[in-house]
């Protein structure tokens, strides 16, 4: 890609960098790891640009590369956690992993208004979801992807995405209530 159009890759990075970082952060929940994953995704994209056959939307293809980078990162991290004696999350379905409970690095709402407190609770609840459920929720609600696109990105079937979505929203509902 860069060999043929030197400016195209830079343009693409500028266009996707924020989304890439945001999605990466939603999965790995660490600023530096998220940056690394987003950068690695761009590098893999650069290397694999010729293999994009256009069967899916470019963004879907790129998100899939990105999510794979993030899951690779998590697998490596899990190895370290196991080595350090932490209880392993075993799988993305479990929600009691201490890593998953790590609070989002957002500002303490403190004395803020109710809306801020509710949002804070909502994000904390999202943080506590498994990475896969979190990815499904955020890809849908923040990135606006349809269920079919999420299925392509995460390489799972549409019914599986629906199950993840339903479980995630049921959990969120329990934790934050239903106040609109």
């Amino acid at each position: 890609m860069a060999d043929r159009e030197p400016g195209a890759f830079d343009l693409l990075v500028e266009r996707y960098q924020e989304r890439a970082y945001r999605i990466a952060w939603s999965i790995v929940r660490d600023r530096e790891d998220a940056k690394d994953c987003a950068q690695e995704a761009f590098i893999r994209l650069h290397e694999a640009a010729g293999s994009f056959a256009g069967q899916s939307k470019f963004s879907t293809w790129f998100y899939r590369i990105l999510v794979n980078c993030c899951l690779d990162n998590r697998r490596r991290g899990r190895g370290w956690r196991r080595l350090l004696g932490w209880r392993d999350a075993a799988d993305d379905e479990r929600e009691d992993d201490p890593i998953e409970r790590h609070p989002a690095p957002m500002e303490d709402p403190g004395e803020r208004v109710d809306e801020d407190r509710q949002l804070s609770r909502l994000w904390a609840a999202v943080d506590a979801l498994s990475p896969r459920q979190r990815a499904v929720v955020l890809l849908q609600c923040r990135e606006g992807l349809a269920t079919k696109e999420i299925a392509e990105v995460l390489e799972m079937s549409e019914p599986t995405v629906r199950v993840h979505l339903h479980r995630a929203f049921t959990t969120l509902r329990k934790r934050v209530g239903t106040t609109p």
Partner: protein
Amino acid sequence: MTGPSPSIPHPVERLLPYWRGELAAAEAAAVAAHLESCADCRATLAAFTAIAGRLERAPDPTPPVHWGAFRAELREALEARTGRRRSARSWRLGALPAALAAGLAALVLYLAIPGQNGVPNGRGPAGENAAVDNAALASQLDLITDLDVVQRLDLLEDFDVIGRLDRLEPTGKS
């Protein structure tokens, strides 16, 4: 949950796709019919859509990043990666011609020594032509940088000359 439609069980996993308009017409109609008669599913859908709406409107919670630095780091990583690959490729591509060049140079040298291995000693026209051809070929292949020296390879008959080859005058004034 209470009050399911007689036709389908609670379509809990299809509520959000229904709300997003992603279901096929028949499936959407079935969910709509169920919602008409099921207060629990209506409450669930209302709660889910409220949460989805809040998530959509909420400010971005990701920690800030300096995008200039992000791109600079990416560029460095990319250059490092492509540079490593290029050097590995050039080593692979470069090693073969170098080996071929060395082999060919040795062959040229060997063949050019008159009287060796049944090759004419270079005194006759055929021998002279072969030596010149070899040398010319070698020069074309950039194997020999000082053609003058090589063209006078008949001197190599003399072991004294061979012994001081490194001191041989490039212009052939040995």
